[in-house]
């Protein structure tokens, strides 16, 4: 006679069946509401959720057992020119990510099995003329599709199940402007939003809103002189080659029907005006809306509110880099946004300045920024010729475009700061726009250590609103990857040498590390598939900031490939 299954076993099998069927039932279309509720097993948008926390609430992997974390599977995308810089997404156990040349993959999140792949045909002669290329920072997801931008100025929608092209819309005349899209798009409310590269490229830096269902362009916003008022802040028609752009994804504030976005610096990067920048130099005036945070109506693309973090930015300290951390403090709804200078701005939900604090130790481009008003105090404006005192921070920023993480359990913001400076000689330049646009920098420059010290990077655990520091971990070379924190009291930092570190989120004690074999400069997420928690990180070096590492630091960077990479996924050993 067969032994009957025990009561417990049959209960367990019923429970498993329920979980499985629940998963099948919830494998529905990803929509705005689902992204907003920030599902615990998924990672549905670049910044984790519209709150921008880069946080996973999962606790299966935690500070007690992280010592058992081991590689579960690996995927190699191929043709990883300039390494891997993307943030993976996960919905219902399927992981989606991009490689260079906008290669897109859908993988089984538990096993790494490839479900489908898509390699767009790109204008490679154009890509050969680009500098900030051919890497890709990731996807957006919504309405049964994933969305990816290309270096030749297109936005492509792919069916999530099959990888078939749903639509392919050309948005930028990249042939003429030379720039395209490297940043991940943002999906919200039936709209896919993506911002062009720009900055030191002489264009007008558009941000686009595209209909997710049809691929038709709904609106565009020119970050350079996008309104009549803004036009007045560009003397001598300099808006025509103003730069700008919005090359990293912002977020969606559903309460205000608003897309929040950071904009890039103006061109030329370095002006020769001296203190009379309002009337003299290459681009007299504030240069709106460059180096700003802006709020656009998601339906119309019209500007609702903005704060220009650095008026007449003459240091290349974009606002485009930073995540928008949406949090509540003492009944106030706030937004925390890092500027590339290393100054961290705290706003109310209408972008009114509430506080400003600084994560960098070495900073002299201004004396300070008024924490109540955001006014720049003691700014350094250069004239043509050699600049006497090195400028801090370096052109790679006091922070870069890799995101920090806010952990609602600890209340701490885990953010990487960078300590490096530069010598420079300012030179008057003329923008080149034909036959194709070229970079317009405005100076010869060279990396330099901070005064009296060495270059280094640091992960800070800070109060996001006051900036009060709880703990800090230092690295000899600034890590260039995003940070992840979890409900399991962990903070993950993928460093530049190739080591993935896990720290206790409360104390900063290092609990675990693993060598991924090559430097990191991309995203890291955590998700659950089949009841098991995973941590997924991309490894693969060679982006613009990392170009300086071999000549500056030597060591492992001298032999590190700049055309290779892998997605590496961890789980607890059985």
């Amino acid at each position, binding site marked *: 006679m067969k032994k009957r299954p025990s009561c417990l076993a049959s209960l367990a099998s019923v429970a498993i069946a329920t979980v499985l069927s629940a998963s099948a039932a919830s494998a529905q279309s990803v929509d705005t509401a689902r992204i907003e509720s920030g599902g615990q097993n998924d990672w549905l948008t670049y910044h984790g959720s519209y709150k921008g926390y880069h946080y996973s609430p999962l606790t299966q992997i935690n500070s007690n057992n992280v010592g058992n974390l081991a590689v579960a599977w690996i995927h190699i995308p191929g043709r990883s020119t300039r390494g891997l810089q993307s943030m993976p997404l996960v919905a219902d156990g399927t992981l989606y990510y991009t490689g260079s040349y906008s290669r897109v993959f859908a993988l089984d999140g538990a096993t790494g099995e490839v479900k489908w792949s898509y390699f767009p045909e790109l204008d490679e002669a154009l890509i050969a003329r680009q500098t900030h290329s051919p890497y890709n920072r990731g996807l957006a997801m919504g309405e049964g599709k994933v969305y990816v931008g290309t270096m030749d100025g297109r936005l492509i929608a792919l069916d999530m199940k099959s990888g078939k092209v749903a639509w392919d819309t050309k948005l930028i005349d990249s042939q003429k402007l030379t720039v395209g899209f490297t940043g991940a798009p943002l999906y919200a409310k039936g709209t896919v939003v993506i911002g062009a590269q720009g900055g030191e490229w002489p264009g007008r830096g558009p941000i686009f809103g595209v209909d997710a269902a049809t691929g038709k362009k709904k609106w565009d916003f020119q970050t350079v002189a996008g309104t009549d008022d803004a036009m007045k802040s560009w003397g001598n028609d300099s808006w025509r080659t103003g730069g700008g752009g919005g090359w990293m994804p912002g977020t969606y504030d559903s309460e205000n029907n608003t897309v929040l976005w950071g904009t890039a610096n103006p061109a030329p990067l370095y002006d020769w005006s001296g203190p009379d920048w309002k009337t003299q130099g290459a681009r007299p005036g504030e240069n709106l809306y460059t180096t700003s945070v802006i709020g656009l109506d998601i339906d119309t693309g019209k500007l609702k509110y903005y704060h220009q973090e650095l008026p007449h930015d003459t240091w290349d300290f974009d606002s485009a880099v930073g995540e928008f951390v949406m949090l509540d403090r003492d009944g106030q709804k706030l937004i925390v946004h890092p500027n590339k200078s290393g100054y961290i701005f705290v706003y109310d939900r209408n972008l009114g300045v509430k506080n400003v604090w600084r994560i960098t130790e070495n900073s002299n481009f201004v004396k300070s920024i008024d924490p109540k008003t955001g006014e720049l105090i003691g700014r350094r404006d250069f004239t043509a010729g050699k600049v006497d005192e090195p400028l801090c921070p370096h052109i790679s920023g006091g922070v870069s475009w890799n995101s920090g993480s806010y952990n609602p359990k600890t209340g701490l913001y885990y953010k990487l700061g960078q300590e490096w400076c530069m010598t420079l000689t300012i030179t008057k330049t*003329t923008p080149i726009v034909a036959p194709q646009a070229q970079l317009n920098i405005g100076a010869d420059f060279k990396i330099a250590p901070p005064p009296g010290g060495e270059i280094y990077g640091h992960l800070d655990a800070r109060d996001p609103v006051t900036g009060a520091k709880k703990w800090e971990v230092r690295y000899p070379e600034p890590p260039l990857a995003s940070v992840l924190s979890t409900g399991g009291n962990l903070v993950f930092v993928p460093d530049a040498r190739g080591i993935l570190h896990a720290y206790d989120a409360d104390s900063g004690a290092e609990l675990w590390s693993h060598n991924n074999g090559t430097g990191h400069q991309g995203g890291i997420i955590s998700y659950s598939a089949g009841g098991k928690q995973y941590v997924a990180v991309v490894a693969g070096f060679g982006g613009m900031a990392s170009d300086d590492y071999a000549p500056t630091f030597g060591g492992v960077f001298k032999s590190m490939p700049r055309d290779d990479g892998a997605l590496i996924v961890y789980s607890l050993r059985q």
Partner: protein
Amino acid sequence: MRFQFSVEAIGPAVLALALSLPVLGHAQPAAPAQPSEQDLANFDVKELFAGTCGFCHSDGGRVAGKGPQLMGDQHDDDFLRNRIKNGKPGAMPAFGATFNDQQIDAIIIYIRDLKPR
């Protein structure tokens, strides 16, 4: 649009800027015209480095940075010409459609003349 130096001092790519700028948003890119001898003689490579090349070739090409040091470069002229025209994937853009042969020659002369500041 203000220019920082005389029209004679600019090469065909930038001359095309001067001609097309008033209708910048809508003009077709001007075909690069053959530069005059005076254009070539005054093609300002130093300014080109401060605008474009110097992003990677630090300190005007004098030290290694994002790109290699150009001062004292041991490669022959053909190598430099080829690299400037065709670039290197994931490292350097291709400038063959932007500069003509004479302008590339001027860039090579600038590189060969580089000295410490």
